[in-house]
Structures are given as structure tokens and as C-alpha cells.
């Protein structure tokens, strides 16, 4: 009787696992299903070769070039990672090897709090504080630069916390033996600790990249949302995510379907990043103590 109770439990749990795993399938299924009309009417090539993004409801009238927005997403993400990576890794190194205990603890706490601020609050702050400042400097203010700055603030905690954790896991012997060789602190960090923590740091960077490319509203609120490939950091851009959020409300027909295509592209990019992280983790799992 007990065993049959166990069997029953196993089936309930297995059913739950099927549902939980099935959500992924469902999400992708619906994305693909809703994108199909766009692929049927427009094909794949038009998303990259059309003259512009003016998606009227009917395929014959509209133009559907997603390329500037893909470039926008990549530029915003690359900029944010370029700024946040040194700051984030620097924050981890600072906490681990440079700051006195109390300072390190306070700084860690501050970064955790930063991680807890919701994206819409970052966007709001950017819109109210940052954009007017950039506007004074170089109008219009809502720009690639504003988006990059806000986004780098948002992903900094991810990089800092994961790097910090992976450095904390390194055995103390590394440091002791390096210092016993008479290396300075910076040489120890640069030559021994950073390379040893590299897989963890890299994981943090890639996860942060994924977060940056998927972020929607904070970027939308400060990037100006013009569909163009910007020629300077002060020009507005539109990202793939912002495009969905802006136009989903009233899109219909092929326009709507092409927004789902946008969603598919985003999902593919981020999922690819997730798999890279997994590869790194597996390859280096023997090296990460």
C-alpha cells in the first residue's frame, strides 16, 4: 500500500515536471505560431533587406526591416557591458582584496541594493535625471548614450556579485603562495586570482549580456525609439525589445506577426548565451573549486 502511495506521488511529481518543462515548449510554440504569417507573407530576407521599418498592416504596403533595431540592441548591450564589466569586476576585486572588511561589507550591501531596484525605476530615474543632463550637453538627450548608461547600472550588480562569489571560492593558498613569492597585491590579483576566477567572471559577463539584451522598459524610456542606425552616441535608437513594447499595443496582421518574429530573434540570442554559459560551466567545473 505504501509503495502504491509512493507511485502515486511519483506520478504527480512527474506530471508537474511535464507541465513546468512544457511551459518552455508552449512559449516557443506560440511565438513560432504567431510568427508564421510573417514568414509566409514576407519570407526571412525582407526583415533584413527592406528599405525601412514601416509595417503597415498588409505585407504589400509595409516595409519590415528589423536590422536597425537589431543593431540598436547590440550597440546598447555592447556599450553597457563595456562600461559595466570593468566596474563590476573592479568592484569584486575591490571587495575581495583591497577594501577593509567594513568597507567591503558596506559596498557589497550597496551593490545588492542596486540589484534590487526594479528596471522601471531605473528607467524613470534616467528619464527624469539623466536625459535632461544629456540634453543640456548634446540634444535631444534621449539617446544611445542614455540607454547605455542606464543599462550598465542595471547589469553592474550581476557582474559584481557573480565575480565576487567566484573569487570568494578560490582557495586561500593561491593568494598565500603568490604573496610568499613576493608578488605585489596587484600582481597577485592580475596574475593569479583573476585568471583562476575567469570562468566565473565570464559567466557573470554573459548572464549580464543576456539581461541587457532582454531589458525592455528602462531602455525604452530613455533611448528615443527612432528606428535608425545611429552615427553617434547622442542619437536616439530603438532596440528589439522596445519595438515590441511600443508597437504591440496596436499592431495587427503582418505587423503583429513581425513583432513575434522580433521576440523569436531575441529569444534565440538569449538562449544561445545561456547555452554558452552552460558550456563554460561544464568545461571549467573541474577548475572552479
Amino acid at each position, binding site marked *: 500500500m505504501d509503495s502504491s502511495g509512493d507511485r502515486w506521488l511519483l506520478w504527480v511529481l512527474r506530471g508537474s515536471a511535464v507541465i513546468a518543462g512544457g511551459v518552455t515548449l508552449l512559449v516557443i510554440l506560440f511565438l513560432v505560431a504567431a510568427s508564421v504569417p510573417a514568414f509566409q507573407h514576407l519570407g526571412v530576407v525582407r526583415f533584413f533587406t527592406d528599405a525601412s*521599418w514601416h509595417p503597415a498592416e498588409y505585407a504589400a504596403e509595409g516595409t519590415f526591416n528589423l536590422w536597425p533595431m537589431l543593431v540598436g540592441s547590440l550597440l546598447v548591450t555592447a556599450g553597457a557591458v563595456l562600461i559595466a564589466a570593468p566596474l563590476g569586476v573592479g568592484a569584486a576585486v575591490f571587495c575581495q582584496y583591497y577594501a577593509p572588511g567594513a568597507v567591503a561589507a558596506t559596498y557589497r550591501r550597496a551593490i545588492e541594493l542596486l540589484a534590487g531596484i526594479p528596471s522601471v525605476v531605473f528607467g524613470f530615474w534616467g528619464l527624469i535625471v539623466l536625459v535632461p543632463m544629456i540634453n543640456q550637453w548634446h540634444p535631444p538627450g534621449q539617446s544611445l548614450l542614455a540607454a547605455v548608461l542606464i543599462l550598465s547600472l542595471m547589469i553592474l550588480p550581476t557582474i559584481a556579485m557573480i565575480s565576487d562569489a567566484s573569487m570568494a571560492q578560490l582557495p586561500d593558498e593561491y593568494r598565500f603562495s603568490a604573496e610568499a613569492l613576493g608578488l605585489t597585491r596587484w600582481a597577485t590579483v592580475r596574475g593569479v586570482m583573476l585568471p583562476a576566477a575567469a570562468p566565473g567572471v565570464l559567466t557573470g559577463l554573459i548572464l549580464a549580456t543576456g539581461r541587457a539584451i532582454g531589458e525592455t522598459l528602462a531602455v525604452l524610456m530613455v533611448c528615443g525609439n*527612432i528606428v535608425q542606425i545611429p552615427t553617434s552616441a547622442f542619437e536616439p535608437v530603438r532596440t528589439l525589445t522596445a519595438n515590441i513594447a511600443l508597437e504591440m499595443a496596436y499592431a495587427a496582421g503582418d505587423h503583429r506577426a513581425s513583432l513575434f518574429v522580433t521576440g523569436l530573434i531575441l529569444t534565440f540570442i538569449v538562449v544561445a548565451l545561456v547555452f554558452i554559459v552552460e558550456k563554460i560551466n561544464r568545461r571549467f567545473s573541474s577548475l572552479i573549486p
Partner: protein
Amino acid sequence: MNQKVFALLLAGLMSSCSAPDDRVRLEVTGSSTIAPLMSEMAKRYESRYPGVRIDIQTGGSSRGIADAASGVADIGMSSRALKDSEKGEVVSYRLAMDGVALVVHADNPVKSLSDEQIVGIYTGAIENWKEVGGREAPINCINRAEGRSELELFQGFFGIAPAAFQPDMIAGENQHGLKTVASDENAIIYLSIGASEYEVLNGTPIKLLPMRGVEASAEMVAAGTFPLSRPLILIVSSESSAPVKRFIDYVLSSEVHDLIRQQSYVPVQ
């Protein structure tokens, strides 16, 4: 202990799920131009007929038409006339008239713009306010997002090809545009006259520019002299229910004309 928490949660869910049967809920979606007016009308209707609840979502005219046709919403709001392709299975009612005018910050010294200047600004030929008699400052030219009825109307009226637009920013809803232009002295945008006049009355620092010499106001729209005017319409599915019809009858009646005027739109007689 966990089970108890779940049980409580579930119980809470269940109780809030079981809605009373005598309630009527109407879902209205579409044009952000009509939404504020609709919400005032809905409030009055709800206070008169308790048990009715009207939820209003904005999303643009095309969305309103599509939602009403597909049945996602009971009523769609559109601030442009139906296209032929949209006329299939829906019935439309003209609620009020509105116009589309160019709007700048209240502190902008420019008093009017000719058609050529407007086209020049929106196609990137004119980039500084000095060129149209304003102060030395770059123009922050704001366009409306794809799918907004104002965009279609504006580009049709001035004959600007979609790809020729050279804006510095995109605004979605009327309110988004209003907020941007109110906070930037060098911005220009085209907006619903009703929505803009309403904001002016409430002290928002913006001003409406006349078009072809005609003052941009509800009066001029009512008189039929403002060049860029448009109907505000409601769309329902041809098989709509009795409560929907009752509500439509109400908002088309003269009982709500004061509300329409209050929002600076022009009631249809």
C-alpha cells in the same frame, strides 16, 4: 506548514474568482485620444447603472478596431475613419469630432508654421528653430509611433512618404507626446486638439499652433473650418450584446455632451 500557506492562497484565489453573476463587464480598447473621454462617460454610466463595470485600455485606433472585430474587446475606440478592409463585420458609431494640430512648448516664441516649414521640419530639411523665426536651438522633432491614427492623418495631409520622416524621437500615446513636449522647450509634435486643449486648461505648459491660418481649437473643429479634422468613432461587433448596445446608446445621447465638450471635443449632433 507549507500546505497551510498554499491552502490559504488557494482559498483566497477561489473566493476572488467567483464573481457575482449579475455583474456586467464591458471591455473597451483602442485610441488613447478617446480613452480619457470614455473613462469620464463610463464613470457616469456606472454610477447610474450599478453592477456595470467598464474597463478601458489604450492601444491605438487600429488595435481598437481589431479587438472589437476579434471579440477581445466589446467596444473599440478609433480616432480615424474605418478603412475599407476593416469594414467587414463591425458596426461603427461616430461619437465626436477632433482635429490634429502641431504643439510646442508654451515658452517657444514661434507663433505659426507654414505647410512648407512643417514638411521641412519633419523631413529634416529644417533643423534649427532660428530658420523658422524662433531662437537659436536645435529642433527636437517628435514623430508618432507606427499605427497611430495621427501619423496616418498627418502624413496623408502633408504628403510625406513614410520613409522621408527624419524625427529625433518617437512618442506613442497622446499623453506620452504631451509629456515630452511639456518638458522640452525645443520639441514639436502633432497631437489631438481635444487632448492638447484639455492639458492647456489644466495648466500644462504647451501651446497649439494654428494651421493654414486657422486657430487650432475645438471651436474651429466644430465650425468645420480646421483643415485637419477627423471623427472619433466607436466600433462594435455586428453581433454585440444588449448591455453593449445600451451603453452605446447612452454615449451617443445628448446626456454626455457636456463631458465631450469638457474634454474639448465636438459632439456630433
